[in-house]
């Protein structure tokens, strides 16, 4: 098995990885629910954003490491250092969404965005962030994402803190990250029941590992 940085040729696999990771083991893809996007619209939006390759946030081709065997991708993990150039990743991603989302989908999302206000955890500036952690179903249980995470950490020798966000209902992911030395440092549970129609869970968790 080889580990390498993703290239634009990997975008189709990355679209799968990002989508499935976002669903967190459910059938709810938050971007589609929030913005009223069908599958083609969502994939087109994500393609446009990935082609910009903006560093410092989770929807960035260059931020991904891919594990592959015989040129077939098996798993992917995205990483970035939070607050690069003093820009929080949320602002960079928000900029990309604002630019590429059609006006009608922004209008559709107005009430949904109000529902989700405050439903977030706080990434630490300067911490290495890990997102879109995905292994193809047939390759699970072999510790591949653990190897990708370890490689991301080796690629950032200056980093002292590593963080992961996940949905609290994803018990298997929580256990897997605990085995890798991560612990829960922040948890946010939505009070508005409507959140369950928009997100793959009612609780967001931030896990952290000190190096």
């Amino acid at each position, binding site marked *: 098995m080889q580990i390498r940085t993703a290239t634009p040729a990997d975008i189709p696999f990355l679209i799968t990885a990002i989508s499935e990771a976002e669903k967190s083991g459910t059938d709810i893809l938050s971007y589609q629910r929030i913005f009223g996007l069908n599958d083609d619209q969502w994939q087109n939006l994500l393609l446009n954003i990935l082609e910009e390759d903006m560093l410092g946030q989770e929807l960035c081709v260059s931020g991904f490491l891919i594990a592959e065997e015989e040129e077939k991708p098996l798993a992917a993990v995205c990483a970035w250092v939070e607050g690069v150039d003093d820009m929080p990743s949320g602002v960079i991603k928000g900029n990309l969404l*604002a630019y590429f989302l059609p006006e009608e989908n922004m209008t559709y999302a107005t009430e949904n965005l109000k529902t989700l206000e405050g439903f977030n955890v706080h990434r630490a500036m300067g911490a290495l962030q890990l997102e879109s952690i995905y292994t193809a179903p047939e390759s699970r249980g072999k510790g591949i994402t653990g190897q990708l995470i370890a490689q991301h950490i080796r690629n950032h020798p200056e980093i002292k803190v590593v963080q992961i966000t996940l949905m609290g209902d994803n018990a298997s992911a929580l256990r897997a990250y605990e085995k890798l030395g991560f612990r829960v440092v922040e948890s946010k549970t939505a009070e508005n029941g409507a959140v369950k129609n928009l997100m793959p869970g009612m609780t967001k968790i931030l896990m952290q590992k000190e190096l």
Partner: protein
Amino acid sequence: MDNVLSEVNKVFRSVFQNEQLDVNETTTANDVEAWDSLTHLTLISEIQKHFNVKFKITEIMKFKNVGDMCNVLRTKMNG
């Protein structure tokens, strides 16, 4: 506070639902609670509607603080 900053402040107060909020040219996302990716997306969308402009992606990506946003707005409004 000039007119552009004053109008931008109105949008911020509306998006963050906080009539006490006062942003200035140096305000960043780190200074305002609940300024995350979805709030930021709403901010950009509402600013564009309020000022009847469409930002280029190269312009949006340079917004490190409210002042950067105001400067682009002033340029666009001055033609």
